[in-house]
């Protein structure tokens, strides 16, 4: 059976199955969710391993050499033929990276959620429905289903935060839930308007066909901003970001993990897959301004994180700061930068999921996340503390973790693109310093120093089941940190056609493409002969 179809059918089937399980059979419910997500993980890893050997099912722009865009593991079932609507699945390297990310996070999230005791059945139903939607977005090759799955992901999110979330001193649960859903929907509706206009222009929902369509420059210039902003609200791009930290702060651990780990990536994925791919000319015009906006993400997000005392708000603003790097990679429109951006989406997803899982672990016991209340937790939870330091180090861009390789690729790409005199790149490097400030402070205030007496009863992760998600996420960060090439090669398969398109568009509008690392047949920059000058 088609593995991509399975990634949607399995969580959907598990969701349905859970409806028929007795609500008091918590063990059975948890087992169903665990087995389903474990299967998803196995399938995703299988696809990842076999990616390069797999032949393309569909190829967009097949005759375009480097611009040929292959989609693998394709699946198609006709639905409403009159409208050209079909249930069509397929992934390129970019999509599969996101599929793998989602599978890893949902598996960890399900295991972390064993501590949920309230309405367990409904909780897992929502969680699995959410993840069905997410898989659908990453794998759909049909605009209609793309949007359908997107909305499918948002609704359970509303319930998950609204029912299982918590109100703290910093954030009101109802407020955060409403804000999150309203802004997500607002973004989605904006994107929808754009998608409909695309459909009315091309006359099909088939994303492979749309990709081959050449939109007029005027159409591109008019509709790129609409679709882009719709997705950018989800990333979240500054200044549309404020739903995100509040949402994190109110959400339960596993939902924060999915939210920061996966949902935010839906936006960046949409920007790459739809906005930039369909409208390359407009992209080359607008992306340089994105490079400026994402500096606000990086620097401003980091500065706000410095002034927070609630751990989840710190990580929430940190996420918005890190998504700035993703946007910067996209804005650079170079191979290195965009590959780095997609790689960073993966790395940041894993890292931030790990962090939220850890915060959830102690919050369940302490019922506070304020740095002033914590301290010295290393003494009672050395395992959690070690994992937290590892996650913080990864987030701060330390070598050995996937985040380092990807963030550096983004920075190199931004440098190579030479946008705005490389000032965004320099600010991004300064962002690494800012990240260090708030993360090391969080580490020091929460885990080091004297421990208040009341925390002496807290428990660490002890059993295998408790430790598995943390060990798994850490191992993934280290694996791709030490050996990034498999991920980079896979992402490249999806990014190369896009960057080729952008380059072609740039040449069309008369902007010279200068690459620091030239492709093999491109002439290198001419050098002034030393002898002549003297």
């Amino acid at each position, binding site marked *: 059976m088609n593995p991509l179809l399975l990634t949607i059918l399995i969580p959907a089937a598990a969701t349905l199955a859970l409806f028929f399980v007795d609500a008091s059979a918590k063990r059975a419910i948890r087992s169903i969710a665990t087995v389903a997500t474990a299967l998803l993980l196995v399938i995703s890893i299988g696809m990842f391993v076999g990616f390069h050997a797999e032949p393309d099912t569909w190829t967009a722009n097949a005759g375009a050499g480097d611009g040929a865009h292959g989609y693998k593991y394709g699946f198609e079932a006709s639905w409403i033929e009159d409208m050209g609507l079909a249930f069509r699945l397929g992934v390129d390297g970019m999509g599969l990276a996101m599929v793998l990310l989602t599978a890893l996070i949902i598996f960890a999230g399900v295991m972390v959620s064993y501590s949920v005791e309230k309405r367990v059945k409904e909780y897992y139903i929502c969680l699995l429905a959410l993840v069905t939607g997410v898989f659908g977005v990453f794998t759909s090759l049909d605009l209609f289903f793309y949007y359908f799955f997107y909305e499918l992901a948002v609704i359970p999110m509303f319930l998950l935060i609204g029912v299982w979330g918590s109100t703290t001193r910093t954030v009101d649960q109802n407020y955060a839930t409403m804000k999150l859903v*309203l802004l997500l929907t607002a973004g989605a509706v904006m994107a929808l308007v754009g998608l409909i206009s695309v459909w009315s222009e091309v006359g099909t929902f088939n994303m492979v066909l749309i990709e081959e369509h050449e939109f007029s420059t005027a159409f591109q210039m008019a509709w790129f901003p609409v679709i882009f902003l719709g997705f950018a609200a989800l990333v979240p791009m500054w200044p549309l970001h404020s739903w995100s930290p509040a949402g994190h702060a109110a959400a339960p651990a596993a939902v924060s993990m999915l939210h920061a780990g996966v949902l935010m990536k839906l936006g960046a994925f949409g920007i790459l897959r739809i906005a930039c791919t369909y409208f390359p000319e407009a992209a080359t015009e607008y992306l340089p301004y994105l490079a400026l906006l994402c500096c606000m993400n990086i620097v401003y997000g980091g500065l706000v994180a410095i*002034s927070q005392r609630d751990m989840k708000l710190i990580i929430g603003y940190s996420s918005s700061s890190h998504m700035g790097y993703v946007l910067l990679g996209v804005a650079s429109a170079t191979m290195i930068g965009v590959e780095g951006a997609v790689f960073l989406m993966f790395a940041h997803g894993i890292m931030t999921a790990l962090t939220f899982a850890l915060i959830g672990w102690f919050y369940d016991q302490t019922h506070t996340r304020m740095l002033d209340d914590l301290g010295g937790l290393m003494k009672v939870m050395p395992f959690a503390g070690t994992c937290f330091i590892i996650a913080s180090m990864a987030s701060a861009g330390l070598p050995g973790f996937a985040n380092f390789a990807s963030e550096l690729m983004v920075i190199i790409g931004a440098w190579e693109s030479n946008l705005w005199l490389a000032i965004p790149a*320099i600010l991004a490097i300064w962002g690494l310093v800012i990240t260090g400030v708030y993360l090391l402070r969080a580490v020091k205030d929460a885990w080091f120093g004297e421990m208040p007496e009341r925390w002496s009863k807290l428990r660490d992760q002890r059993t295998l089941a408790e430790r598995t998600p943390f060990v798994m996420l850490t191992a993934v960060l280290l694996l791709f940190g030490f050996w990034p090439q498999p991920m980079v090669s896979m992402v490249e398969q999806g990014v190369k056609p896009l960057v080729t398109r952008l380059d072609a568009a740039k040449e069309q509008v008369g902007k010279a493409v200068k690459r*620091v690392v030239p492709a093999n047949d491109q002439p290198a920059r*001419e050098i002034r002969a030393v002898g002549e000058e003297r």
Partner: protein
Amino acid sequence: MDLVSLPSLAAATGEPITSGFSAWAAWIVLFAPLFVAFLVACVPAIRKAVNLAAGLAIASVALGLILTLFCYFLPALQSPGVVYEMIVPWVTVDGTVLIAFGTRMDALSITMSLVVTGVGLAIFVYALGYMHGDPSKGRFFGKFALFVFSMLGIVVSPNFFQTFIFWELVGVSSYLLIGYYWQKDSAGQAAKKAFMTNRVGDFGFLIGILMIWAAVGSLTGVVDPGAYSAFDFTVIEKTIEQVGFEGLFQGGVLAAAIAAALVFCGAMGKSAQFPLHVWLPDAMEGPTPVSALMHAATMVAAGIYLVIRCNFVFYGAAWAPTLICWLGGITAFIAASMAITQNDIKKVLAYSTLSQLGYMTMALGAGAYTAAMFHLTTHAFFKALLFLCAGSVIHGCHHEQDMRHMGGLRKLMPSTYKTWIIGTIALTALAPIAGWWSKDEILGSLLGTGQVWGSPFLLLVGLVVAAMTAFYMWRATYMTFAGEYRGHHEAHESPKVMTVPLWALAIFSLFIGFIGIPDDTIPGLAHSNVFAHWLHHWHKGGDAVLHFGLAFGATVVAWLGFLAARAIYRESAGKDPLPQRLGAVWTTWNRLYYIDDFYAWLVGVVQQGIARCAWFVERWVLIQGVINNASQTVRVTGDRVRRVQAGRLGGYVTSFVLGAAIVGLLVLLHVGMANAAGGK
């Protein structure tokens, strides 16, 4: 991914070396400590069997030392300019190697590797005794091994990017070890400070690297990087050799100077040069073996090593050498003056380290790379020795670090005393051992350099600092070892496991200086400067010659400093008359020129203020002003509109009639206008 072992581009003479023992050995030297660190981290049984963990760590360092020694004695490397490189592509984008990873064994990396593993081995053995009874000794040795891995990674790195990788890793392992006593608030603070200060340095470093990478990468017509990336040292060196700074950078030599200064920012962070020196003294919060290995002998030398490794970026780069030289001079002086006012024995040594690093940096600025490397080597031995002696004193005095509560240890700790004296003489250059030769070579290089503006003044600074060095070191010696014991508990000599490494390092400190005696100094020995000949490839600037007048002068000022310290502190019994005599000067020195206070203000007030502003904008402008107001507007509008649909029949009828009237009017208007248009 293929493992490729390519002929080195750098092989100036002889056959290119495609493989061989040295190439493989470097990988083992590098990864053995990481393997141990990994075992300790992941296998609780090993972590808990503390002596097993320690044994493994020591074995990994010893293995590194032995293999490096083999490489050194292998005849192949004895011919100058030979390089072993074994490189694998790490990140390949679009068929071009973006980042490569590998090892490079040449004379310079072997020298540094010998220093790291040699001094490291002595300190590891010593730590076995020093950390005795600490329940988390296993964790300690795991982190210690991680550090050695990171450091060796810098040493054998063949390219800028890999250097940056291990640069950061050294920062992390330093962070972990400074914060080893994490229950102490001050340790947590110090660890954070060290990490952040280094990060600020790395900010410039990375920009510098990218500048050079972008320039070299766009010039690949000159040197084909092949499996090497445009980050590769050899590729960069060859490119600069062929096209010069003017051909490399579009901004010419000015851009080259900026790039060099930015790369030096990295060195400034790790080697704690002014104005990024503030973290090093605080780093003494870590256990003493950590201070000895990282914050005296090896990690802080990384910056010096980096500049020597990529000297082609610095040499002749307009004003960059002058900047470097002056920063070194400033560091040497301010650190020496701060050392005079310290009462904590480890702090004295910390500031002394800063000051000596300042000397090395001055040599770097002057282009005397072998002199800097020579001083780095001798300094590593005697400063490690001094730190271990201090550790032994602290251990013997039951964790007392204040010299005012010591005294009289000469009789109580004879081995520590004797080795300390050797180390002090080596450092203060009273007699021609170790530091006497290396420091003199640095001063001599300042005399001969043409690329530094104001070098005579810096030479003067060097001489003054030499006197100050002798003063503060003998001050510490008298306060600690002379007179009667003033402590609270009985002091005792340290166990053999600690004193044996002391003696090993002391013997090295005695003899290490003789490998760098300038040529023709001793009649009949035309090639006595073994060290400089060995590092021939890195030798730029003038030849090392013994300037007898300078050597004599430096020795005299050192003796003056010693005699002054002797006069003041021999009978002082722990009381320091200097604060009264020097007054405000002493206070300034003791308050570290208020630099730390300034930084504390910068972080606590300025940075926090900016962060608060950002939060204010977020909270009140974006969230309250835009989003909440928008939702409020929607709600209010909804409220108003709702009232229209309130169920009152009269209201509906009125609206209906009004609406119908408006529609009718519009239709009439439309028809009328259409008629008017048609009529024309």
